[in-house]
């Protein structure tokens, strides 16, 4: 894996997305290009604006959408204090950025691959769709609660076959979950690969389908992170007996360095046994964090 680095990058611009009146809550943040040798879709960066006071110590993790010759782009949704402050960035501000971090999604150009995205979980798939050498082997199902224009869905839809599912009520959610189940069975039948990114209840649903239907599935987890480099042990997830390193099977591994992408059967969501995933459980929050 490429060696990460920590650099100071200047904000090129911050573009609100899908403004529907009211305050914007979705943004594309363009930073000047970092001097990183390489990166892979599914990897992420830690961002902390240089101007942040110490009342908020931690950086925040975001998927890399794109690194071009000119810029590094991330796409984010305002969900709390940190993202609200990020939304105040202005052109010329400096941001401490370290990355590229973590592993990446499996990329098997010839395997039919289904991307399942919930809400802002669409972010890492932008890079995936754009760097995939055989986009005709790629499909996406995208569940979202906010209007479609809030998300960078078009930039994916123009490259590959993508369906969007607007969740406006509980019925929409059950229908979306049904669709996911059906699609995962289809991809299993083609010896396909499933990649999922979204909020935890959504990932829990995907994981249980993956185990039930026996389809090769990767999940990209969104854990709270303090360091992003494997040091604080604040972002761990629980492995199963399938974890390749027997010393850590059934233990905890850092999502930031061993993930954020995991094979569905190699990890478990702590509380899964307590509450099996149902439509009532994956619910309203499914596509918004």
């Amino acid at each position, binding site marked *: 894996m490429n*060696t*990460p*680095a*920590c650099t100071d990058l200047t904000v090129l611009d911050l573009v609100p997305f899908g403004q529907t009146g009211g305050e914007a809550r979705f943004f594309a943040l363009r930073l000047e290009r970092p001097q990183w040798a390489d990166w892979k879709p599914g990897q992420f960066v830690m961002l*902390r604006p240089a101007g942040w006071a*110490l*009342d*908020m*110590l*931690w*950086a925040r993790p975001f998927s890399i959408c794109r690194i071009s010759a000119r810029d590094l782009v991330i796409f984010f949704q305002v969900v709390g204090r940190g993202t609200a402050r990020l939304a105040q960035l202005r052109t010329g501000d400096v941001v*401490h950025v*370290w990355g590229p971090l973590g592993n990446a999604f499996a990329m098997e150009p010839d395997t039919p691959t289904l991307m399942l995205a919930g809400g802002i979980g669409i972010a890492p798939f932008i890079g995936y769709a754009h760097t995939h050498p055989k986009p005709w082997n790629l499909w996406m199902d995208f569940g979202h609660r906010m209007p479609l224009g809030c998300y960078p869905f078009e930039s994916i839809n123009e490259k590959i076959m993508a369906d969007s599912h607007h969740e406006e009520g509980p019925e929409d959610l059950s229908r979306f979950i049904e669709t996911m189940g059906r699609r995962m069975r289809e991809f299993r039948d083609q010896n396909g690969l499933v990649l999922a990114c979204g909020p935890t209840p959504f990932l829990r649903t995907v994981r249980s389908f993956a185990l039930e239907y026996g389809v090769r599935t990767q999940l990209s987890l969104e*854990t*709270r992170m*303090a*360091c*992003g*480099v*494997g*040091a*604080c*042990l*604040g972002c*761990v*997830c629980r492995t199963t007996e399938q974890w390749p390193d027997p*010393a850590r099977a059934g*233990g*905890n591994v850092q999502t930031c*360095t061993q993930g954020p992408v995991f094979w569905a059967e190699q990890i478990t969501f*702590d509380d899964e046994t307590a509450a099996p995933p149902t439509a009532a459980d994956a619910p309203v929050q499914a596509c918004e964090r």
Partner: protein
Amino acid sequence: MIDMHVTLPGGLHPLTLNNPVMTASGTFGYGVEFTPYGDLTRLGGIVVKGLSLAPRRGNPMPRVAETPCGMLNAVGLQNDGVEYFVRTTLPKLPWREVPIVANLYACDPGEFGELAAVLAAEEGVAALEVNISCPNVKEGGVIFGQDPRQAAKVTEAVKMRAGSKPVIVKLSPNVTDIAHMARAVEDAGADVLSCINTLTGMGVDINTRKPLLANVVGGLSGPAIKPVALRCVWQVAKAVSIPVIGIGGITSAEDVLEFLLVGAHAVQVGTANFIRPDFVFRLVDELAALCERMGIEQWDDFRGTLKV
């Protein structure tokens, strides 16, 4: 230009650091995590994540939460065990160029002794730091660091098996009288004291009505606690004649000098490592520049010179 090296005096086994800036246990992994971000050998010393005899899985999630100018953690000492550390991790560290300090975590004095024995045999380990902020399971779960008698017992148990390694005892601030604790541990043979460990704190979410940490309570660290840490270091440095390492909320070269001013020989940087992963490397440079600017030419001229 100041010679940045610091020697912590201490009877038989002085510990020499490249400079006064060490990293604090649990906030810098085993050091190896930070090699992409800086040259480990430029640090004063590295204190690794707490080691226990057997591997520990640690506490359930969530384990960390952000607080105003600080954070809470209840990681629960997840680690691969001391054997794994000495076999796999230590050989990867540049221990000839930078002192590696092992941080010890156990639940009774006997275990502490065994840990010390394993580590004492390792050339790559420069010193042992004893984390006494853990419950004594054999004595009803009272925290070693909150009872001078228990803290002394642990210190003795470690000293007995530590061979020629300097033994640092890390004090908890969650006590009525930290100077009293410090003297108890000094009398029990500690070579160096470090302070402070985290303050016990808590956070809750009013929407879910749940604690922010699965463990309910956790340790508060970061700039928020710096005034408490400075007070503790000052009280401890006055109370004992062994050297003290200051810890708590350091985020700048000025902060480092504040701890030296109240009597610390060196410091450890913890939570600030999460501000950015190259933080501590930059801090070493800034400290040298600040000393230059302030005309500090020897640590001895500055340390403990607070005018009260």
